[in-house]
């Protein structure tokens, strides 16, 4: 029975997201478009961190690879939306493959730092080629170009449903993936890497696969962000954007399917609401983080699973 409950929860979540479009005022509809794109990023991060137990501090490079792959191939390659999107996702996947081959030689804290360093190198490279990338200032993708088969992606409705479609695909694909044998093997690695190896699984290949899939999802998020909001900038490759997915996933609940979405919504509105009455919103965010680690260590979804709904996926 758990299977159908899980499916019901996932489709219920998606239905709520559709309903929100008709219920929410315009400002929040825009906010939710952004939240869904960022949630794709968090879902990708969650596969690596929540399920495989690998903490990367450099995921911003995959997000940025998707973003720049999309933006640069449109601006300089003259590609239209779909091929450019493919280029962005592919760039992120290839980068993840390369980084994985090198960084996965290390474990634990060294892995964190190596990914951080690679991401920093990537960020600096973007700044170094400022002639094309416009560095920190970034560049804008013209409204006329952001057009998919006659649909203008800049209108609020098209943007919301484009974000929703991408989110739904990624969300369901990931929910499926973590229940598959592949997903179970990743959890086995998280729980006890030695034992997984003794059982005959090729741990190195599985970790690399997890990193590449995680990088692809991040690339989708990055390309989608550029596509829907029309801006490409180096700040998305900076350290903050590697820390954010960690926060979202930890707040929402690592290793749960809906945790990433909850985490992004929570963080987004925490900063949004607190910045409306104080300009020290980072202080509020900091206090919230400390309180959550003290009182809800498994994140929101993780705590719900522990306290009330044990079947939560």
């Amino acid at each position: 029975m758990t299977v159908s409950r899980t499916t019901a929860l996932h489709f219920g979540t998606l239905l709520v997201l559709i309903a929100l479009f008709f219920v929410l005022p315009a400002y929040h509809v825009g906010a939710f478009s952004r939240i869904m794109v960022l949630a794709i990023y968090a879902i990708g991060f969650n596969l690596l961190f929540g399920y495989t137990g690998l903490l990367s501090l450099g995921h911003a490079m995959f997000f940025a690879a998707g973003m720049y792959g999309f933006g640069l191939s449109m601006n300089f390659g003259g590609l239209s939306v779909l091929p450019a999107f493919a280029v962005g996702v592919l760039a992120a996947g290839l980068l993840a493959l390369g980084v994985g081959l090198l960084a996965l030689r290390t474990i634990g804290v060294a892995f964190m730092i190596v990914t951080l360093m690679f991401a920093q190198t990537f960020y600096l490279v973007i700044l170094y080629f400022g002639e094309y990338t416009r560095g920190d200032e970034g560049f804008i993708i013209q409204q006329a170009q952001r057009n998919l088969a006659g649909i203008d992606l800049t209108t609020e409705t098209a943007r919301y449903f484009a974000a929703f479609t991408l989110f739904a695909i990624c969300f369901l694909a990931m929910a499926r993936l973590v229940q598959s044998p592949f997903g179970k093997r990743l959890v086995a690695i998280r729980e006890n890497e030695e034992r997984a190896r003794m059982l005959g699984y090729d741990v190195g290949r599985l970790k690399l696969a997890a990193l590449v899939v995680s990088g692809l999802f991040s690339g989708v998020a990055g390309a989608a962000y550029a596509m829907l909001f029309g801006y490409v900038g180096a700040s998305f490759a900076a350290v903050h954007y590697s820390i954010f997915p960690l926060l979202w996933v930890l707040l929402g609940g690592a290793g749960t399917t809906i945790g990433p979405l909850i985490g992004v919504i929570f963080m987004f509105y925490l900063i949004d609401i607190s910045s409306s009455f104080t300009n020290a919103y980072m202080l509020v965010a900091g206090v919230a983080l400390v309180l959550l680690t003290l009182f809800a260590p498994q994140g929101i979804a993780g705590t719900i699973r522990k306290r009330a709904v044990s079947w939560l996926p």
Partner: protein
Amino acid sequence: MDFGPHLMLASIEGAVISAILVLTAMGLSIVFGVMRVVNVAHGEFFMLGAVFAWAVSTLIGGHAGFGFVAALLIVPVLVGCIAAGVDQLILKRIDYDVDRTIVATIGVLYIVQQSTLMLYGPEARPVAPPFNTRLALPWFEFGADGFQMIWPWGLSVTTYKLFVIIAAISVLGMLWFVLTRTKIGLIMRATQQDREMAQAFGVPVNRVYSWVFGLGAGLAALGAVLVVPIQQAHYLMGGDPLLLAFIVVIIGGLGSLPGTVIAAVLIGMSDGIISVFFSPTLAKIIATFLVAMVLVFRPQGLMGRVAA
């Protein structure tokens, strides 16, 4: 200026960077070594040190020397107490869990940064150095008239920079003495090697942790007090020292204090020298990438042992 004197000037800059870096990284390394936690807020303790140094020297006034000496004595203790408070209030309660500590210290980072912004403001403020005489340095070369000593224009060092280097070395010496020759050091090393066994032998592990966390933050603050006459106090100044200290600790080998010192000197010197001769961005790209590659092919760091 010729290449030789130029290189010497760059090396002196590098030595000053190394001196500050070695103190900051030492703090991070001790905390990691003994408590096995990654303190992301370490850079903010550095920043607090600089801001408090400005506050103390402004409050005291008079000759720059008084304020500076007072800051040197008071500020590390003050920052250490704040850090010990953070340990008691937060880290102890989450039982030093590695992942949760990272998130909690990110929270602390935001809190400290924003509080400083609100109370101290966004300006960068300088602290006057207690003494700052410029010493010209000689250079030797073989010219047409054989071996001779010349005084190239621009080749000089300030007494304050020399003081920073000497101060860092003496603090390191004291630290080495405390860690290897006193009972405090013995207790810390016992806690590091086996927390439970140490507890069984009557070591108050929780108190040791608070002291160690305070000591780590105090070292960062000390580095900041020393740097603030050269570099101004600003509420965002904690980012770079954090990243550099991290690199140093990892490259040196986690928990290895001699490794930390060697790596700090290596990275400080190369930072000083590279940024004099190359485009800063390109230099940073090369340096960051090389650090990553060192880790990829020697994950245990330069002096670390392979985990059993």
